[in-house]
């Protein structure tokens, strides 16, 4: 993906044009077949034809998508709706019929056998008739760009459809985010209720008893006070772990880089942290990525049997990228643990993604990406020996 896109040369473009001219014939045949079969669906025979003609049309459309994407240097994805596995032919047809791309393909077929065909034929003819070589030399690129632009226009989702999809994604992630934060609040409430709050009640009781005992049994009262002190300690410990779960203080102090270094130090496995961030991402992103990395590292400690791990933080093209790797036994399944699912939900609220590569016998490499802006570099103190 990162390699520079190579634009096809003039001859290759002409070859594309020739292919498009030749493919126009099957496109025409398939278009007619599909239209006729759609009518014949009422007498069943159309279903059989459609089951062949639609995939064939899609195959040809996909070839045009690939050519257009190469000429224009931008991806033209074939984002057809997925037919659920084990669907019967009628269900399959229903999914196809509901897919706006199917209808776009049909409209494209009309374009490709008329305007598209003319453009591509022109490109080929300019080369074949040798006298027009100069015209071909200068004309091939604009012609093919125009043709590819047309293909792209017909074969990709339109503005409205893209917005619809975006709304769909946003609705889903918003619901998940709300669920997630509600669950978090419940967990925090429970932690406080069962932990610190209960301990403070016990503390109050110990002190009350001690108060009553001072006159009669000073030694017993002293014991109660000692007990009260150890209860305070436990309550503080529990409050600390609750705070760490909400927003680790070191993240507030030092940002993502410092907080990840601190995490790495606390791991039983040696972890090398390579931070290459020129600034700080927005606080919510920082926190989501921190907890994602913490979960990955915790899994390494629990399951990977690794003796080495690493975390790379970088930022490029408007995306924060965190790579967490280990040399353990691999075979990690990201959807198996509730922890990892929570991480993915949290990241998806920021349009973030997580990719896991974990072949058997390792290494496991998890790549987290979140689009965000970096704030201007803040001078963070050098972390000494860390």
């Amino acid at each position, binding site marked *: 993906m990162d390699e520079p896109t190579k634009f096809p040369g003039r001859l290759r473009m002409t070859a594309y044009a020739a292919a498009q001219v030749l493919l126009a014939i099957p496109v025409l045949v398939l278009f007619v077949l599909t239209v006729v079969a759609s009518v014949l669906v009422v007498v069943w025979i159309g279903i059989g034809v459609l089951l062949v003609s639609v995939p064939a049309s899609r195959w040809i459309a996909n070839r045009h998508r690939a050519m257009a994407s190469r000429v224009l240097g931008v991806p033209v994805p074939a984002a057809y709706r997925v037919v659920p596995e084990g669907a019967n032919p009628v269900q399959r047809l229903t999914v196809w019929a509901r897919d706006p791309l199917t209808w776009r393909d049909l409209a494209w077929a009309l374009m490709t056998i008329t305007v598209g065909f003319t453009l591509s034929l022109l490109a080929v003819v300019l080369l074949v008739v040798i006298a027009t070589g100069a015209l071909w030399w200068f004309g091939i690129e604009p012609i093919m760009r125009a043709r590819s632009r047309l293909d792209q226009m017909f074969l990709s989702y339109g503005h409205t459809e893209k917005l619809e999809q975006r709304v769909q994604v946003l609705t889903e992630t918003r619901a998940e985010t709300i669920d997630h934060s509600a669950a978090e609040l419940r967990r925090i409430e429970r932690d406080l209720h069962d932990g610190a709050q209960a301990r403070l009640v016990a503390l109050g009781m110990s002190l009350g008893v001690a108060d009553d005992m001072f006159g009669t049994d000073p030694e017993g009262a002293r014991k109660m006070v000692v007990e009260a002190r150890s209860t305070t300690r436990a309550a503080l410990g529990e409050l600390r772990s609750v705070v760490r779960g909400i927003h680790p203080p*070191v993240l507030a102090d030092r940002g993502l880089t410092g907080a990840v270094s*601190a995490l790495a*130090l*606390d791991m039983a496995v040696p972890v090398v942290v390579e931070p290459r961030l020129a600034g700080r991402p927005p606080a919510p992103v920082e926190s989501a990525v921190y907890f994602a990395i913490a979960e990955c590292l915790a899994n390494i400690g629990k399951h990977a049997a690794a003796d080495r791990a690493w975390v790379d933080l970088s930022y490029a093209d408007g995306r924060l990228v965190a790579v967490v790797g280990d040399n353990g036994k691999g075979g990690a399944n990201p959807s198996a643990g509730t922890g990892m699912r929570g991480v993915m939900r949290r990241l998806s609220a920021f349009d973030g993604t997580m990719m896991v590569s974990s072949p058997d016998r390792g290494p496991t490499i998890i790549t987290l990406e979140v689009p965000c802006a970096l704030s201007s570099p803040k001078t963070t*103190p050098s*972390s*000494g020996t860390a």
Partner: protein
Amino acid sequence: MRLVLAEDHALLRDGLIRLLEANGFTIIAAVDNAPELELALEDPRAEAAVVDVRLLPSFTDEGLQAAIAARAKRPGFPVMVLSQYVEQLYARELLASGQGAVGYLLKDRVADVSEFVEGVHRVIAGGTVIDPEVIATIMARRHDQPVDRLTPREREVLGLMAEGRSNAAIAAAMFVSEKAVAKHTNSIFTKLDLPIDIDDNRRVLAVLAWLRV
């Protein structure tokens, strides 16, 4: 003993002043923010400082930064850093200069008044007093360093040494004789190739070697 105290929480600041003064310390300055702390640390009369990590104005780690800066200007200036939470990262930063005279404790530990006061005295004497919670995370680490040569028992002794305990206290904590502890410490010093020196300094060096793994 003249101390500078920095703590942003008024209640805790008053408590600490009372506690330290009751135990023979003189507080020459008690502040709640970083700029005033920096000024107070420049006072040549100050012999040591007790500093909270979080201070005004930004409530992040300016107390720690001020402590490190003060020690850069006055190498070996004794500092006891207190915090609501502890990080191994911060312990390393405090000790990075290679000198002892550093304490890093959870605020909870202040409740053990005698132990806390003893800790401050140890820091002023040039020792290290590191919170058991930090020690525990280091203990859990898989070592691949010179410290690896230590037996589990010796590592335990070293951990207690880092907490700032004397041989007698270590012996009590491990239910062994003081002589056995002395044997362990000598073995630790040899395994870490520490030069023959006064015992106190070697203890600090051993702890530093351990924290840096």
